[in-house]
């Protein structure tokens, strides 16, 4: 299921969220050092959870309207959408272990396949 790529525009974002059972969206920016630091962790998580969710990133310097729409105040912010609905979010650096626990907890009991 997983496709790890950067969303190009708001319409693509809406389609992705609406049509994919579970999507982890990473909101990033070009000057965000922590975003670069978290990237290797997310890459591993994307592989590990590839049967359960898609992983995409949104560069808010290009898609600023999405920052406003989702009230994003700091980067990186990660939001997990399930069936088109925001389920959980977190901001700042997160280790792979913390991400595993966070995603597993959020997906527990949900059918996303």
């Amino acid at each position, binding site marked *: 299921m997983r496709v790890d790529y950067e969303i190009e525009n708001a319409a693509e974002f809406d389609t992705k969220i609406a049509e994919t059972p579970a999507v982890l969206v990473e909101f990033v920016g070009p000057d965000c050092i*922590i975003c670069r*630091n*978290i990237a*290797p*962790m997310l890459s*591993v998580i994307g592989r*590990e959870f590839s049967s359960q969710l898609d992983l995409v990133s949104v560069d808010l310097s290009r898609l600023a309207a999405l920052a406003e729409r989702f009230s994003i105040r700091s980067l990186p912010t990660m939001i997990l959408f399930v069936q088109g609905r925001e389920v959980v979010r977190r901001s*700042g*650096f*997160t*280790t*792979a*272990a*913390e991400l*595993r626990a966070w995603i597993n907890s959020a997906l527990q009991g949900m059918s996303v396949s």
Partner: protein
Amino acid sequence: MPADPLPFIALTPPEEATGPLKELYDDLERVRGKGRISNLFKAYGKFPELGKANFRRLNILLTKGALSVKVKEAVLVALAEINHCEYCVAFHATAMRASGANTGEISAARNFDSTALDLSDKERALFEFALKANGDPHAITRDDVERVKSLGASDADLVEILETVNTGNSFNLFAGALNVGADDFLHYSLEEARFLDEEAA
């Protein structure tokens, strides 16, 4: 574009080393064996006193302290992965194996998964602490510190694991920025680390 195979600075071969640089090279051979002068330390040799200080720092880190070499090498493997330093991954994966780790544990370190590392609860927590500090030192909270301490970590353990992070990052930076990756001395590591690719296949 193919990767540039050559270092970006001139590295002095051992036979041309004199003075403080020769002292550094002699130190390396005394500890690691004849001919085992890595390109990384040849690069540091451009500032021999700094090279000697850093080699001493590395030796202190790996031979002194209370933490196992295995947990420190696991952190160094993870950092090398984070820093996209394939050469460093191979080198430290080999060192991690020499410290008793099996292939599954090396893979776990590369995937930042402390649960699959055969370490004490304290050292697993310190591995996670190291990765968090590396990602954003300001994200570390008093609760993070208290958690590792509740598992038996001392103040000295915290210093030791953070210095492991510092050392790994500084060496990865040198290897990357000066392109000192492949060298004859460490080919054995790259060869030995073929098991990493075999496992992934």
